[in-house]
């Protein structure tokens, strides 16, 4: 896996339960072994503006982890207080992914919570670049998507890619 190239996608949704459907579809692809992800998270923004990580699926499809059972890479990208609402499971220590050894505090959660309006949702995923087309077609209800390449295997590169994807969500 060391040679695998990764992309980060941030997708925004007008309708939270349609975001949930896309998330579930992505999880099903992983279960069917048609997709591997380093991490995926669904964030909903309540009508009062409170962001909540609804689901996570870090290292879905990897040996030793169950779907949705871990709190790892993607959730780790979210800064407190967002994390306060997440129940951290024991599986976190079992992370074996490329980026897992890094602690990446990008502040992305706060940024996403601030960027997405109340009553909407966002999905973030890190996945094998060769499956970009699969991911794109899976997230059918996203009204906006931004993708960035992760140039390297470290936290710095991941953070840069996240920043690029985040920037791509701005503007019109």
């Amino acid at each position, binding site marked *: 896996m060391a040679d695998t190239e990764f992309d980060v996608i941030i997708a925004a949704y*007008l*309708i939270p339960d349609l975001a949930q459907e896309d998330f579930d579809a992505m999880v099903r692809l992983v279960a069917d072994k048609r997709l591997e992800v380093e991490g995926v998270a669904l964030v909903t923004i309540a009508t009062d503006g409170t962001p909540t990580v609804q689901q996570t699926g870090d290292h879905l499809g990897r040996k030793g982890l169950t779907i949705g059972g871990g709190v790892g890479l993607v959730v780790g990208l979210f800064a407190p207080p967002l994390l306060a609402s997440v129940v951290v499971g024991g599986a976190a220590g079992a992370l074996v992914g490329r980026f897992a050894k890094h602690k990446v505090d990008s502040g992305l959660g706060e940024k996403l919570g601030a960027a997405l309006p109340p009553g*909407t949702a966002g999905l973030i995923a890190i996945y094998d670049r060769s499956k970009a087309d699969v991911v794109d077609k899976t997230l059918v209800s996203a009204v906006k998507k931004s993708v960035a390449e992760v140039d390297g295997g470290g936290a710095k590169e991941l953070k840069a890619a996240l920043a690029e994807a985040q920037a791509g969500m701005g503007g019109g």
Partner: protein
Amino acid sequence: MCSPTRAALLTGRNHHAVGMGGIPEFSGGFPGYSAMLPRDAAPFPKILKENGYATAGIGKWHLTPEKEQGPAGPFNHWPNAWGFDYYWGFLAPEAGQYDTMISENQKIIGVQEGRDGKPFYFPEAMTDQAIDWLHGVRGHDAEKPWMLYYSTGCSHAPHHVAKEWSDRYKGQFDQGWDKLREETFARQKALGVVPADAQLTPRDAEMPAWDSLSENSKRLFAHQMEVYAGYSENADHHVGRLLESIEEMGELDNTVVVWIWGDNGASLEGTPTGTFNEGTMVNGLPLTDEEQMQLTLKWGGLEAWGTEMMYPHYATAWAWAGNTPFQWGKQVGSHLGGTRNPLVISWPDRITDAGGLRSQFTHATDIGPMLLDIAGIPQPDLVDGIAQQDFHGFSFTDTFADPNAPEHHTQQYFENFGNRAMYKDGWWLAMRMPRTPWRLDPALLAKFAPGVWDPDADPVELYYLPDDFAQANDLSATHPEKVKELTTLFWEEADTYHIKPLLAGFSPFFGILPPLGANSKVTYYGNVQNIAPGVVPRIYNHSYTISADLLIPESGAEGVIVADANHLGGFTLYVEDGKLKHTYAFLGVFEYRQVSTESLPTGEVNVELVFAADEAKPATPGQVTLFINGKPVGGGRMDHTVPFRVQRLLRHGHRIRRRPRRRPELRPQGTVRVHRHRPEGRL
């Protein structure tokens, strides 16, 4: 369309005959489209006023030429001159319901505060004003008759209403517009308001089938209709408040209430996807489905649809569903969907057939003659010494007692932005031009430019309404002689009532504008506020300069120098953190910001913004340069500019603050000057 129908209603004459063939924003140098009420067409409120009635107009107006909506007047086309002793409302074609720019009599007084500590909301405020006026009249004179013109902003865009109202309709439109139309039609038949043999007309291909939509679209669109429904019910609630107040005064039984509901057919102007900002359509900016979704997200998602963050309008096909069982809607004057609205008249003392239905053909021009007939006032031959045009409408008071009374209004033309119809003795010739109401973009309009479009070359439709309530069966192929007769009659009417030149209501889009005048420099002294869109220096599509003299104290200052409109279209030139800043909102789609590279000095300071257009053309890109005391201090490129108009009023100077001030408020020392370059241009 708003202005033509209002003009016809208030004057009793055909809209072109009183200069309102189009709307005041598109007024041009043609008699039928001047937006200037002629002196030979006194409105019926003026006649009532001159015959002892107290009169008031409350709410939307949209009948005053834009260029006259300022302190310099003239005021002979403002509401008071139309015969209203008192006016309170907005002059514009539409207005945000939370921050409405209010006019009172002959002055724009700007955004008002809500009562009792509550936020301002126009439907509530206008009703309070109407009730206050009634109480005042009765408190002054126990017997004097009165006439109130109560004209809501609803259900015109923007669809602004509190969530508690739209939530009442949650889930009620999930079935979509196709099904809603069938349900409505069945209910109409059950109520008997359409004949049992009426046929439901099909959806035009310009509007998508509900089942063809993505789930995303269905959810967004259903919410648009929930907001529209809540907005409409809210207006109905306030109408109820008004009627209750009349009842409380003990006068409801002897009050004639004429209730007309609709936007001359529900409005198709929201584009097939609905829009977060109706201003994009008004400015001819086509947006894709994807862009509309993204911009909806940008400005707050579904939760913000109905709030001041947007200027929303629902999807076209909801309007079509609202016009069940007819075809088309607002702007499409060729068909009943764009012309036929429900009319209810209540007068408990004299109309005993409560709930009865009447089917005689009536027109907006009939309302004035009918009310004067009730009041026992004949149409005056002279008003203010001016010989008057005859009313073009007819009283229909005989239908109150007799459901089978003869039809008096047997012939009527219709024309709106090129869509035409001719009605005579039950026959209806529909002459629709091949333009959808939600498109004002230059590429499409070029097809209808003078000398390009032959209106008689388009297909027509012929209906016989006594047998075909909904215009479902086109008889043009089998009755060519009737088509010819009605076509000829329409053009005769066109000569009589100043309909020609056809499409003069679009003359600004074809570069035919009234003279702008030689004055290309405007100077604002002191505290000038609330300048109407038509009076704002026309900086669109040209190079321009804004120059201001400031006095900055030693402790510094910040604040707005000049601002026009808001985040959905407009600009602000301001001082913040010691820097000169400029923000330009391109209709909520793009924002451009420039910040000076240097701080403002203290003392007397001149600042300037220079926009250098690439060329004088609609929506021109250009370069902004900021100056402090004549020295360039930064700037930036603007790739898009608003070509036609923003929806709000220009304000200037010290009343505006972007946030609680931290420093002494900036005050222009004396003047702000706006200079539109190239005054010969007419874009």
